[in-house]
């Protein structure tokens, strides 16, 4: 499969995503400069973490206007798979591709630590390879990861199964203590109504190799690859 990894000025997880997609997952991945106007023949787009445009004004607020994001908007509108990680999740929310917003952590401090994630539904292009009931151990690293959406939006998202991941404790309970940033309903990641665009604050690309202590994050990339393969065989048939 061919992945496009966006590169804004200030992106700093772009190389990490390319590394995992290429060297760990064994697929093709290339960087897409923020001034580019097309995702080309890519099968999926990754909006990586970092501090795009310095995160000035508001996280992701400037990046959403970049030429490459217009291309991603068009790609998503045609059903293309898009995953936003950390700052990428913030950008996708700012761009209106995902519901809700990400605000300052409740602690008012940056947080970098491992968390446990519960996959709320395996019915998505981003979660289909996660075994039922398996908790994922994946790190977070953000200052503005507190997910917020109004009650009405949340109710709609829940009924449509748009919440993909929640912060939980080691036993799988979505407790207050397990919530690292104050996110409503312990939400760590969501998808859009069309289920082809998703975003999450934790970094699966930092949890894809045993040498880094954990490889649960691979399941998210494996899910995307599996979905793309299914799409491809459906077209072939």
């Amino acid at each position, binding site marked *: 499969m061919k992945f496009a990894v966006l590169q804004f*000025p*200030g992106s*700093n*997880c772009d*190389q*990490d995503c*390319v*590394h*995992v997609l290429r*060297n760990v997952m064994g697929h093709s991945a290339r960087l897409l400069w923020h001034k580019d106007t097309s995702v080309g023949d890519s099968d999926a787009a990754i909006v990586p*973490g*970092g*501090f795009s*445009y*310095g*995160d*000035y004004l508001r996280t992701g607020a400037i990046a959403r206007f970049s030429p490459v994001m217009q291309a991603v908007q068009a790609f998503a509108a045609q059903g293309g798979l898009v995953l936003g990680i950390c700052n990428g999740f913030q950008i996708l929310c700012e761009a209106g591709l995902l519901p809700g917003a990400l605000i300052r952590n409740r*602690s008012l*401090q*940056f*947080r*970098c*630590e*491992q*968390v*446990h994630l519960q996959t709320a539904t395996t019915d998505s292009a981003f979660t289909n390879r996660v075994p039922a009931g398996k908790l994922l*151990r994946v*790190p977070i*690293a953000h*200052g503005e990861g507190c997910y917020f959406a109004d009650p009405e939006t949340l109710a709609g998202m829940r009924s449509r199964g748009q919440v993909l991941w929640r912060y939980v*404790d*080691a036993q799988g309970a979505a407790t207050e*203590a*397990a919530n*690292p940033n104050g996110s409503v309903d312990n939400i760590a990641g969501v998808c859009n109504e069309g289920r082809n665009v998703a975003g999450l604050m934790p*970094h699966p*690309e*930092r949890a894809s*190799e045993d*040498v*880094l*202590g954990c490889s649960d994050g691979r399941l998210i990339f494996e899910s995307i690859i599996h979905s793309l393969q299914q799409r491809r065989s459906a077209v072939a048939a």
Partner: protein
Amino acid sequence: MTEPAITPELVRKHNLTPDEFGKIKAILGRDPSYTELGIFSVMWSEHCSYKNSRPLLKTFPTKSPKILVGAGEENAGIIDIGDNLAIAFKIESHNHPSAVEPFQGAATGVGGIVRDIFTMGARPVCAINSLRFGPISMDGAAADETRTQEVANNRRLFAGVVSGIAHYGNCFGIPTIAGEVYFDRSYQGNPLVNAFCLGVLRHEQIIRGAAKGVGNPVFYVGPATGRDGLAGAAFASQDLTEESAEQQRGAVQVGDPFMEKLVCEACLELLATGAVSGIQDMGAAGLTCSTCETAARAGTGIEIELNKVPQRAPNMTSYEIMLSESQERMLIIVHKGREEEVKRIFDKWDLPWAEIGRVTDTGRMVVRHAGVVVADIPARQLADDAPVYQREAREPAYIAGVRSFTLAGVADSADPGGDLGRLLAWPTIASKNWVYRQYDHMVRDNSAICPGSDAAVIRIKADSVPGGTDEGAPTFPEKFVALSVDCNAVYVYLDPYEGGKIAVAEAARNLACTGAVPLGVTDNLNFGNPHNPEIFWQLRESVRGLAEACRAFNAPVTGGNVSLYNQNPDGPIDPTPTVAMAGLVEQREHITTQWFKDSGDAILLLGAPVDGLDPLLGLGGSAYLQRIHGVKNGMPPRCDLAREQELNLGLRSLVCGGGIKSAHDCSDGGLAVALAECCISNMVARETPSLVGARIDLSGIACSRLDALLFGETQARIIISTSANDATKILERAKILGIPVQRIGTVGGTDLEIKTASKTLSSPVSELHDKWWKSIAAEMKD
């Protein structure tokens, strides 16, 4: 523009002595202009010239076949790590700015050291730091108003520094993967912020900060110059006073990590084109230092026109432009005819650039402002001929009291279990998770051992090298570099020579515990005012200890930083020669962490349990004496370098043989604290520690005092664990290697139980964990 007349008063205000002023006149053959006076004052400050410390620095071992760029040659030293790869690393202080404005002071400290690394052509891949503050806890003292206020101010500085480092490093995208934090009254009002950065490059990518090639154009790249950070290097070379905060805030720079990220990427991209002849960052002393040093290194001259320098503020004088320390700026000397490549790449990154001058053959640094010459100085003499002082040294009066201190008046521990808990909760010993959870310590996907073990381990892979993922780039096997930064400054205060040795020995031991072999050292000498003979004695003696230890561990010094004048109105800081050591883990399988792994594993102690030849039994200067008895006195434990090296080599040999499941050195708080840390320090995830108990039997160890056995800080001790099946084999191998070894217990259960000849203490590991893990957060009230 009229410049002030040069008066003796103005010379004094620039921290130049009448003798120094005379030397300047001799070099110029006339009186300096105001701008020239400013230029000399920053270049001849301690921060830039090492005028008080240079004779001592010459005693460090600085050579080894692996050193590609040695100490003092360039912005950072470079060491070969095999397969045509090399690492560039350096530590630097930002103490005074952090005292005045902790957030920006610390943030720009990170920015400066990161620039030093990519200036060498290396990609910065990780950062570490060493921090010291006044106490953030009352430690059981009475809460009078003064003390409460002091503690509140120490907390403010601590919080500001940590968030400044986090802000800069996280946004730049560099993992901050290790560090140390100490709290002591001597740092009240004068915190220490020492920042370290490490980068990776191929041998042929090393670039020099030299202005070579007469006629080559000189480019300025990066953001515009403003009035911030005026003469910061000179400010760093004075005592802090009550008025510093108000008067010197303008000397603190303002950092923009986003800009630095862009400048770094653009510079690395430009260096790959081969268009660059030399490059230097504008750090301390800004445009002044970068122009005269590049010319001095190349033996050339340099001419610049200040009207071409991008300026943020209107009507800046030549003095201000030359002395500004605005951040994220670089000076680049480009091969003539290849100017377009600079413009293309910096335009791509939307970064300002300007061609401001050219390289000449005159040997002079000539600065024009609107065509008028405002400075004309021989570059080499400005950069290299700063006066050098042999300061007077005298043993401080307090040392006699240290030598005569005995344990006669110190009651043995009546409540060892309680004392263990108090030590684990003491902020200097307690978990630093409140600090490192604010640092992104995983970005770049290489953090094999994160903060919280003896040393950090970082992987080096293709994208760690500039251009390493380009098509056709040479491939290489993954490598692992271990890093530790250490200094027990209380030991150094009590015995600078022995304390200096211990700082290096602890770093080496920490590397050994992670399975690494030392490669080299960068040091940061933080001391008080060198004009005080007692302070200079501390400096001289500790350098003697550091140098001897670096030789013993075959870890040459590749560079570093000297920060003097660290004192507040109450007196000098404890002498603090911080040692950052880098080492190589030869195979991935050798990477070892400090915590116990599985129930039933055997616990072995390598090294003699108590140094019987030390009259204080390892309690001199110990955390136990400080925290439990309120005593900061006594000769610190003795450091036998030959024995330390045997222990490290022995441990590494055991690790290479396989079967070592954990290794942890005994340092602050002694054996009991180290054992507790083995039980409680493995964090699986948020709110999810992996705790395991241990049953320890020390009843066979003869020791006249219980506190010395449990909390004494005898050197050269390491706790290892191994499966029960391997234990016998490993005991035998250790004995063959000549290392004292004994089995002291077994992993398992929910309590840490320590049996001694006189008493048995037992504490649930969950309680010990909570005290240790939550202590700093509780003091910081969040």
